[in-house]
């Protein structure tokens, strides 16, 4: 993984000193709340319902075991002994004290980490595929360009105060796992006919209150121009994006208002001035960064392992886990493993300090001391030997990290919601828990099959509810919490936005509604058909009919919101 040189170290150290000074001036009354707000946000510090929340950057979701141990240490020393992995591959502390945040940053800097630009109206953490570098379907390892983008965007002076937040995702596979179409800029790296590295660029995707899938602005950008092309997009957006209404300030609104043709024309006109400028990349610079991501020292292994096969045949619990949590690897004899942070009854994405330490130990013992964070809020060990899987599973299970539910109905994506977030209209964690309890039977989960339930506590959509096969959105109706349910959303290459099935539900009804949706699916599915396929084939109507069958308009429990 990427190791800091003296310059990276210096920038992060200087940032700690700058932020410490800003915090002291704020506490001394020399900075007003309004003046301090953008400064603390650009350092990931929100003022929340109960306490500040600090979001730590995990660039493109990659962590060293020493870094994860440091995150565990911070949770113990400065927080309530746990932390939350977010849907943007970052980590959030829910209870830090504002005056101690500079000390937390100092701790982070000691392991080459920071909280730079994890919030605020600037370029946020660059995200990518959690299986980057190991996926069999990977065409190009996206991590070197992700790191180059990270450096370029860090304290970019012209784009420090954009109309609104700006998220970039990159991917190097044909089968998109980085949801590039849901980002302000999405980039898919691929090889052209002469093996040249090219980039397909989407712009103007995003969820939030106006969900829009991105549109292709350039389908064959030579990689050398990745930064200058982004600069042209960002300058166009910085100048022309709306600032008069924060709900209409994302780049997607500008792209929609102009139309993709006109937006592309403006970007190309701007790019003509940037192209081949100083930020143009060279093969030497790409190679310099890329060598940080060289493959680890894999052993030469057989494709199969007799011990593994034997356990698989004789231990059903292990086989269940392998089926859901173990993923193909491009190197023979290796597998990637997802450690589920979604056991029933725990807020999705939460991990205790002890669990983080345990995962760090797993990484040291089994996976070249590296961990990845997925946007589905789980942790991944990317390079585990087939022969080690059984031992890993046994200890992971004891630590509550081996719930065999990856990609199943209880592997719920969920924002922190009204329990923590001051933006939320409604709680989301108890809804996730109620659904997990409704479907707690593992055989039933496997029978239902691939299923993504995404829950957001408000229309900012941190829980990505628009692209859940079932999406749940918390809404406020006369001061009480209601939940709008949609079906048919999907991430990936064939991404789609879900359709709302009808009036909203009270909190204690949601799990029952999900049950009825599942019932319709189970009764109607053809062989091999996933929930999403059935919804796409039948449309919303039969699902809606079942859910609302015994409800009359105007009945108390149905709110028309």
């Amino acid at each position, binding site marked *: 993984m990427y190791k800091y040189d003296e310059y990276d170290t210096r920038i992060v150290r200087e940032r700690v000193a700058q932020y410490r000074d800003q915090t002291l001036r704020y506490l001394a009354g020399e900075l007003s709340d309004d003046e301090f707000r953008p*400064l603390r946000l650009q350092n990931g510090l929100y003022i929340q319902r109960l306490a500040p929340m600090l979001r730590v950057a995990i660039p493109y979701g990659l962590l060293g075991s020493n870094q994860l141990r440091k995150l565990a240490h911070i949770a113990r020393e400065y927080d309530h002994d746990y932390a939350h992995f977010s849907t943007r591959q970052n980590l959030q502390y829910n209870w830090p004290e504002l005056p101690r945040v500079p000390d937390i940053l100092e701790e982070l800097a000691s392991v080459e980490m920071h909280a730079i630009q994890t919030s605020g109206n600037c370029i946020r953490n660059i995200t990518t595929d959690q299986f980057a570098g190991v996926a069999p379907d990977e065409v190009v390892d996206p991590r070197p360009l992700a790191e180059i983008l990270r450096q370029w965007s860090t304290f970019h*002076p*012209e784009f420090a*105060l954009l109309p609104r937040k700006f998220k970039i995702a990159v991917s190097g596979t044909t089968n998109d796992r980085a949801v590039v179409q849901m980002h302000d800029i999405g980039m898919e790296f691929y090889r052209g006919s002469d093996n040249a590295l090219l980039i397909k660029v989407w712009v103007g995707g995003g969820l939030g209150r106006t969900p829009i899938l991105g549109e292709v602005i350039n389908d064959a950008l030579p990689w050398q121009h990745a930064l200058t092309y982004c600069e042209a997009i960002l*300058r166009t957006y*910085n*100048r022309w994006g709306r600032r*008069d209404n924060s709900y209409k300030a994302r780049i997607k609104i500008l792209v929609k208002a102009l139309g993709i043709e006109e937006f592309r024309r403006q970007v190309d006109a701007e790019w003509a001035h940037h192209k081949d400028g100083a930020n143009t990349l060279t093969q030497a610079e790409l190679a310099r960064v890329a060598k940080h991501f060289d493959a680890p020292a894999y052993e030469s292994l057989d494709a199969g392992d007799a011990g593994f096969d034997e356990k698989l045949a004789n231990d059903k619990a292990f086989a269940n886990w392998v089926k859901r949590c173990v993923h193909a690897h491009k190197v023979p004899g290796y597998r990637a493993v997802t450690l589920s942070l979604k056991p029933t009854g725990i807020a999705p994405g939460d991990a205790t300090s002890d669990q983080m330490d345990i995962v760090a130990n797993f990484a040291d013992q089994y996976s070249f001391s590296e961990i990845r964070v997925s946007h589905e809020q789980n942790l991944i060990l990317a390079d585990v030997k087939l022969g080690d899987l059984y031992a890993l599973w046994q200890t992971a299970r004891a630590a509550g990290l081996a719930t065999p539910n990856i990609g199943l109905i209880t592997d719920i994506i969920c924002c922190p919601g009204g329990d923590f977030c001051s933006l939320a209209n409604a709680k989301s964690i108890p809804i996730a828990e109620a659904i997990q309890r409704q479907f707690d039977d593992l055989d039933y989960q496997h029978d239902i099959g691939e299923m993504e339930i995404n829950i957001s506590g408000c229309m900012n959509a941190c829980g990505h509810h628009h692209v859940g096969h079932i999406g749940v959105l918390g809404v406020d109706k006369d001061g009480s919490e209601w939940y709008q349910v949609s079906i048919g959303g999907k991430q990936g290459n064939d991404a789609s936005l879900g359709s709302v099935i009808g009036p909203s539900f009270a909190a204690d009804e949601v799990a029952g509604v999900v049950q009825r949706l599942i019932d319709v699916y189970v009764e109607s599915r053809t062989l091999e058909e996933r929930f999403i396929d059935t919804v796409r084939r039948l449309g919303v109507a039969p699902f809606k009919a079942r859910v609302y069958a015994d409800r009359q308009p105007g009945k108390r429990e149905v709110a028309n919101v």
Partner: protein
Amino acid sequence: MSELRANLIKTDGGESRLSMNDEWIIVRLPAVQEEVKKQAGKVVQFKLTNAESATAAQTADTQVPAGKVLLPLSVWLARKAEFSARVAAGEIGVWLETHELVETLFESQPDLNVFPVIGVYIERFPDGRAYSTASLLRTRFGFHNELRAFGDVLRDQLFFLNRCGFSAFEVRADRSAEEALASFKDFSEPYQAAVVVDQPLWRRHARV
């Protein structure tokens, strides 16, 4: 008439210092009663890019004193003919509002270096359009004289403003410019190319 501004910082060749003898007078449009716009119950704070800045009556009524003056762009556009002798004497500069386009000024005066100073008014510091305005003035329109930020100019944005090409900073009157000087040294080696430090880190230094 010269106005003493203790809150003006100028940068020159990487050095930043307080400037105590500034001769430039910033000319303002006469105030008009403006309707307060609201959206979703909130006052709209930011004008759309290239929105109308002033009425004909405002530009006509603007009093322009003798000496070195920074004119509002709208006054310059409406009345430039009357200032030709003063432009030649180096007494005229122009300032842009945050939402005004540098292209508009360029179309009226292709050689921007006839102006010893161009100003950009920062109405509210979280509005980053001024950063692009400055970058364009320096890199596309060849302006190499003083580029001054004034208005809601605060210490914690100076480093970025400077890197985008501003060379003079009139710090908001209730804040100390002297204390703000420290912020120019917040970061010693930025990653990316911009106007000031115009090569990326990897082109400036051999990195491992």
